[in-house]
């Protein structure tokens, strides 16, 4: 089909390691891709280092392949194993240790269609970590986790940026919504986002393209929630639904629904991914040099000036170490990998790791808590004619409603819900419907399309005592010391989750849905894949790592532009904020660079 773009960007030139690049960007996900875009479009010569391979994602995902056309109906081959919730609970990291499988993956590879994403995520056997339980999901490869992300693209508000002023806990961000709003606009317009304006002060609207539509039961819930002064809005998806004239690598969304049938990913690139959205266009400027299979090992510091001067990296294929030189270092390796690299970069000038005079690197680690959720049966939909309900990048989102004007007596901060209803290719109730025989078969058929479900995402408070450090005794396949987790949910998260389950039940009951199941248990730490906060911004160099432009307080030519910079987690998904912040900081970086201040 001629609207599927098969272009893969201009071939990368050979990497010249004798030259000094204007900037080295470490990581190629949402943050690294955005840094490459902003810096190269303003003329800076950039070297990007990506630890993983350059995959032709279009050939991996095979989005339209039917289950029965795959030898294992989309499942991985024998010997490939996805960790289960039970294993995360009864085992301790490193989870893959002692397992006899050839390949062990995080839990997302237990979802449908995992065979299509197994080359995008890491083999846990090569990438151990230690310490407390944590379901760490990692992608190595050009584009990182943006190749399979969940696409929910939300803005934060001053209820988040100024949360301490609101409830006294933690720290305010060193920016307010007004500082970042113009950059949210730019991200919206450059990458495309689908949604419906709701005029909510705690969930600012984006500049939306064509919205997705709601299934019948979702409209019922939306209307019912109005009586509670709550909102259900179509999934705000980081997906271009109208197309982008300025980007030849991406197609508009054709509602194929493949993104929801698989671990994720979009092989026509209607959903944002960093390679087609940011990196290939940056390569087209002629200013970006890309080196994949390059595992950053240490940020090098000049002993005299204390400034960063380059990066040593290990070639993932030949195991050899190389050194690249840059005038500015932009760290964008993901929240936990960036903290790891800073801690690995010890020198006489920075004995605790580069940029870590505050001893806050790795600390204030936060994310979203998941688990509580609900499934309901919509009786009016039972036995009705089947419709296409999953031909869209997402279902619905219910924004936060706690601790806005009221004050909850048991917990601070808030949570939102993601959910969907209607027909699916392989519906869950195939398994949950009891019995067998003609009655079972008819019930499954009649109930196809009649279920609605949703799950909560709650803000986890940043706490200094929740942190990662380097394990002195364990290294990964390339000999690099690994992270050790010291991280547990606290009382606020537990109280919030109790309320989440109760609120979900209340909302479904009011909407008239028959409650099928209420989930009350918290999932393992890490489940949301929204880890944040390990190198937070702030105004005080004693209690923060970065300033408001994600610039190291200690090393002025070091910027850390990924989720590690976030001061608090909010309950809204972080990707859009990561990119808006990175754009803002990189604009500042370019202007300082041009003034000779770095």
């Amino acid at each position, binding site marked *: *089909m001629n609207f599927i773009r098969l272009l893969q960007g201009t071939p990368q030139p050979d990497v010249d390691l004798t030259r000094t690049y204007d900037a080295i960007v470490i990581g190629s996900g949402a943050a690294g891709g955005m840094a490459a875009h902003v810096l190269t479009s303003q003329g800076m010569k950039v070297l990007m280092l990506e630890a993983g391979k350059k995959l032709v994602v279009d050939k991996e995902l095979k989005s339209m392949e039917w289950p029965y056309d795959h030898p294992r109906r989309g499942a991985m081959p024998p010997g490939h194993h996805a960790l289960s919730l039970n294993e995360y609970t009864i085992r301790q990291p490193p989870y893959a240790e002692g397992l006899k499988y050839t390949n062990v993956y995080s839990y997302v590879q237990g979802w449908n269609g995992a065979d299509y994403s197994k080359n995008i995520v890491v083999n846990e056997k090569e990438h151990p970590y230690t310490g407390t339980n944590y379901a760490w999901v990692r992608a190595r490869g050009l584009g990182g986790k943006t190749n399979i992300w969940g696409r929910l693209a939300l803005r934060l508000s001053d209820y988040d940026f100024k949360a301490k002023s609101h409830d006294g806990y933690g720290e305010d961000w060193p920016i307010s919504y007004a500082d970042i709003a113009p950059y949210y606009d730019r991200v919206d317009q450059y990458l495309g986002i689908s949604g419906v304006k709701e005029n909510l002060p705690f969930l600012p609207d984006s500049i939306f393209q064509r919205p997705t539509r709601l299934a019948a039961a979702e409209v019922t819930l939306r209307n019912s929630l109005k009586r509670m002064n709550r909102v259900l809005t179509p999934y705000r998806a980081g997906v271009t639904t109208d197309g982008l004239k300025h980007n030849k690598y991406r197609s508009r969304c054709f509602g194929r629904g493949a993104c929801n049938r698989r671990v994720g990913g979009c092989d026509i690139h209607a959903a944002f991914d960093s390679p087609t959205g940011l990196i290939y266009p940056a390569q087209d400027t002629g200013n970006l040099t890309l080196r994949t299979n390059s595992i950053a090992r240490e940020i090098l510091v000049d002993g005299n000036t204390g400034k960063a001067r380059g990066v040593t990296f290990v070639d993932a294929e030949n195991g050899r170490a190389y050194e690249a030189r840059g005038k500015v270092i932009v760290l964008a390796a993901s929240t936990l990998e960036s903290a790891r690299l800073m801690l690995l970069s010890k020198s006489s000038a920075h004995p605790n790791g580069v940029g870590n005079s505050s001893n806050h690197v790795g600390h204030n680690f936060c994310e979203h808590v998941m688990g509580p959720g609900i499934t309901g049966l919509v009786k009016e939909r039972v036995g009705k004619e089947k419709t296409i309900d999953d031909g869209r990048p997402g279902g619905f989102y219910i924004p936060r409603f706690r601790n806005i004007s009221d004050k909850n007596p048991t917990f601070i901060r808030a949570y939102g819900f993601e959910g969907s209803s209607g027909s699916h290719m392989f519906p869950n109730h195939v398994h949950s419907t009891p019995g067998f025989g003609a009655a079972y078969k008819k019930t499954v058929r009649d109930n196809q399309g009649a279920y609605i479900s949703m799950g909560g995402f709650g803000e986890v408070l940043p706490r200094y005592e929740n942190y990662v450090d380097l394990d002195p005794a364990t290294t990964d396949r390339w000999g690099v010391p690994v992270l050790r987790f010291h991280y547990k949910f606290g009382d606020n998260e537990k109280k919030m989750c109790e309320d989440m389950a109760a609120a979900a039940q209340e909302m479904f009951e009011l909407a008239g849905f028959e409650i099928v199941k209420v989930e009350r248990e918290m999932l393992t730490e890490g489940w949301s894949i929204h880890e944040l906060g390990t190198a937070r911004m702030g105004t005080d160099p004693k209690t923060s790592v970065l300033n408001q432009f994600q610039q190291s307080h200690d090393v002025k030519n070091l910027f850390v532009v990924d989720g590690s910079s976030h001061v608090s987690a909010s309950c809204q998904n972080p990707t859009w904020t990561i990119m808006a912040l990175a754009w803002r900081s990189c604009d500042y970086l370019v202007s300082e660079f041009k003034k000779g201040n770095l």
Partner: protein
Amino acid sequence: MEDLSRRDVMKLGAAATVATALGVGESLASQPATPAFFTTEEFAMLDELSEMIVPADDHSPGARGAKVAAYIDARLAEAFEEKDKVIWREGLAHIERLSRDMSGKSFAQSSAAERLATLTRIARNERAPKEPEELFFVELKRRVVDAYYSSEIGIKQELEYKGNTYLAEFVGVDVSAE
């Protein structure tokens, strides 16, 4: 034919017997001549059990039509976990013993009503299975419905799934104009 081992000949003979007993000669003929994992007797038993779990009706073919037993056989043949194979061998043997206990006949030789009684017995504690045969029912049903509802018959005919297609416009209710 001279290469056939004694065991193979016995399996062929048993298959013919089972096919006659189950009255499914034609359907069985469309299955692999030699299962990759199961014995022919086991395969015939699974084929019948799968059809009892998801039977053909006036709406669509059942598990037999969707070749569910062949799919399960292929997956178990390549199973990485030896215990998966053991669970299935022992599970089917358990049903066979149960059938003889309950009706005095092998599963293959028992009547439709007797087979239903056997399956009903092992399915009785589906929500909280304890006995080995109850645990096996959960595994049996899981594999059968996974295979059936991921087959073309299960997806398109039975559940009338209409997606996985290119849409010029999203389907549903547009609430942006409210």
